[in-house]
């Protein structure tokens, strides 16, 4: 499991942006506060990251493909491509891990949505990836449905569909002296604010399905059952 902490994103610019939906919208934690192109289905984000960053994640995009190019100055360090679908499912997010760069660097993210659509994205997170143990088996995944449901006069249901977000409940076992307290530091830093999680990084679809920008609405629970290790249980509510 990877958590981006601390964040290293300095600036985000785009080669095309609707003036009402500038690229700066990508820097907050609001997935629906999007960056949009001026009408094109393609666009390139240029992210300036501080030294030490090795993770970048994009949430809330309608892109079908993405190419991430890591550069120091004009020199390409690394490039990765993503197809935001897997096993017949499409995703509005992807997560890219790259070799850490020890200086300020730029990350070019070329995005392409379906022809005829207007490319957009909600949030970009970039920073240092803190690796924790994989969650124990039995990660609990559910949904929180924000839709409005009310009873009509004949018993039928009136439904106004709204966003449905994912929820996860995880437990990880960590070395207490290092990672347990690092996790504590991360929670103490963010609190209930949105954090970028890659819940598992060793599954085929982990770059899409297991990437979450979410809130730990309630503080994690630590369980010091072992001499040097502790269990950490936490719940994640996906950001809107």
């Amino acid at each position, binding site marked *: 499991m990877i958590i981006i902490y601390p964040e290293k994103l300095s600036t985000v610019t785009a080669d095309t942006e609707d003036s009402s939906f500038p690229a700066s919208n990508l820097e907050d934690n609001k997935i*629906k506060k999007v960056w949009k192109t001026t009408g094109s289905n393609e666009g390139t984000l240029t992210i300036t990251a501080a030294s030490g960053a090795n993770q970048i994640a994009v949430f809330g995009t309608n892109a079908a493909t993405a190419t991430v190019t890591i550069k120091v100055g004009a020199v390409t360090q690394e490039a990765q491509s993503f197809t935001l679908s897997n096993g017949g499912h499409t995703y509005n997010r992807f997560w890219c891990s790259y070799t850490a760069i020890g200086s300020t660097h730029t990350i070019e993210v070329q995005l392409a949505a379906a022809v005829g659509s207007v490319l957009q994205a909600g949030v970009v997170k970039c920073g240092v990836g803190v690796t924790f143990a994989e969650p124990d088996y039995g990660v609990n995944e559910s949904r929180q449905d924000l839709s409005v449901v009310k009873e009509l006069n004949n018993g039928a249901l*009136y439904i106004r569909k709204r966003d449905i977000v994912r929820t996860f409940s995880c437990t990880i076992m960590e070395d207490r002296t290092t990672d347990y307290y690092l996790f504590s530091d991360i929670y103490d830093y963010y609190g209930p604010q949105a954090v970028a999680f890659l819940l598992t990084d060793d599954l085929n679809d982990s770059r899409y399905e297991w990437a979450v920008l979410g809130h730990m609405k309630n503080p994690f629970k630590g369980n010091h059952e072992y001499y040097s290790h502790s269990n950490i249980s936490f719940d994640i509510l996906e950001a809107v």
Partner: protein
Amino acid sequence: MSVGILTQLKTAVSVVWKNTQGVKFLDTTGVDWYSSDVVRISTEAYAGDNYWDDYIISFTPPHYSLANTWGGYCSMNFGDIELSLDLFSALSVSGNSVWEDSDVVWADADVSWFSDPVYGNESNLWPIPAEMAITQEFTLTNESSASILFDGTMYLQSYNRESANYDLYGTSFEQNLLNERVDYTEETVPVYRAFGKVQHRKPLRLADVGGYPVYHNGHMGGNLAISISGTSDNGSGKVRFTTATNHGFSNGDTVTVEVTDFDSTYNTSAVIAVIDATTFDFDSIAYVDDLTGHAFKEGDWAVYDDGVPISGNVTDNGDYTFTLSSALVNEITISGTGEYSTLSEIFAWACSAALLDKTYAYSSAIEENPSPTVKYWANSQRKLIDFLSDLSAFFNHLFYFTTNNGYLVDMTKDNGSRTLTEYDYFASPSYQYDPPVALLKSEWKMWEAVEETIGKYVKEEDYDAEVTSGYPYGTEETTIPFHTDRSEVQSRLRAILTSRLKQRVSLKIPVSDDLPVPGELITFTDNSFKTQLTGAIRARRIVYDFEDDSVQIEGEGVVS
């Protein structure tokens, strides 16, 4: 994706701004100063043409409510709005700002702008500003099709570390019914106004001019009555009238004559035969004796002294005032027709740019056809909107306003309609009756020129009309009449009583782009009883509860 309430906030309304050199920039008429950073917020995050942040925590549902169950002003009311403090911390403005008026953009490059606290208002969003302009729009499709629900001002009520509460203030109609001017006693008083036909009402006396009394004619239309200088036999035994000046009548006109003898058969209205520019005949009225008086057509106005026609001694000044050209004898009265005589005409006048400033046009489809005539003399000051409310209620009409338009709706007609199946409204409508009215009555006075033992004078007489319901245990109520014909008043009271006694139904429908409006006919079937009920009501109270995803409609109607 459904949308909801889109709300724009502006930090400055009618504000005086100063720069550091003390130069004031005044918000005068035609110049609209506002922050170029319009804040867009909503009940839920929405990216349309712009991004609308979900900073509205809650707000009182806007709602139409009718002044009386039988009609009147159906006003749109607003309560308060609770906003997230993120709105203020995220958009705090400091340093240079760009302010615009309607013509130019002012880039603040050289000076620091600030608002002078003496004049109120704030130049930024922190600390939380006391006052902001607010525009609320509603849409379920997209931003460009949003329609304005509310356009007004919000004033800070309270705030704490979690949220800020503002009271909302919509358009208020503070205009008075009557103009005011200085009278004969040098007091500033309301100027009386005639609506429709009135008889023998005391005009407002203004300051004398040239030693002669001057009066206001109560905004009566038409021409001043023509003086009759004498009568004669037309050669066929019928009466021929000679006027002091050209009468201006045409052959076949219906003319009313009033003479100094109140019992004379000449005091009547008849079709005339014009002889020449200063004479005309009543071919059906026999010549009796030679009398003086005045003559006028329907819609004209006349002046009396103790009930005696004296229009010949009056000069029409052409500005709704007249001057007596002879010494005042006793009580001056006037009769005639106000320049606005029907409910529709009066509403159109009230909607004019100088008053309520709404666009209005008579519609026979939703108003009584023809528009009912009014007979009312307004001689005490009150708010125009209250007068309109009582007036329209008497004639069983309601009226309401949107941002730009005014609508007058007959309570018995449909201002649009919709049919609901049980899939279209929420569970459990409520059915209720208001306590019954036993008796509804109106009382008014009329004035008539009479000659009695004490001489000629204008006599005041009391009139009343009443209708009963057949529910003797009910209440007795009175209503202001805006007519003086007993049969008309009785007819209007009957209509009001019918409205009062109808069953009332309240039901909720889901919010849709097609929001109901006052007067809309709602028909529905309710199968939640053992035996089906079918209802037909007209919307009188409408609560647009966007947080609850519902629109509550309440109104009177028939359930069978």
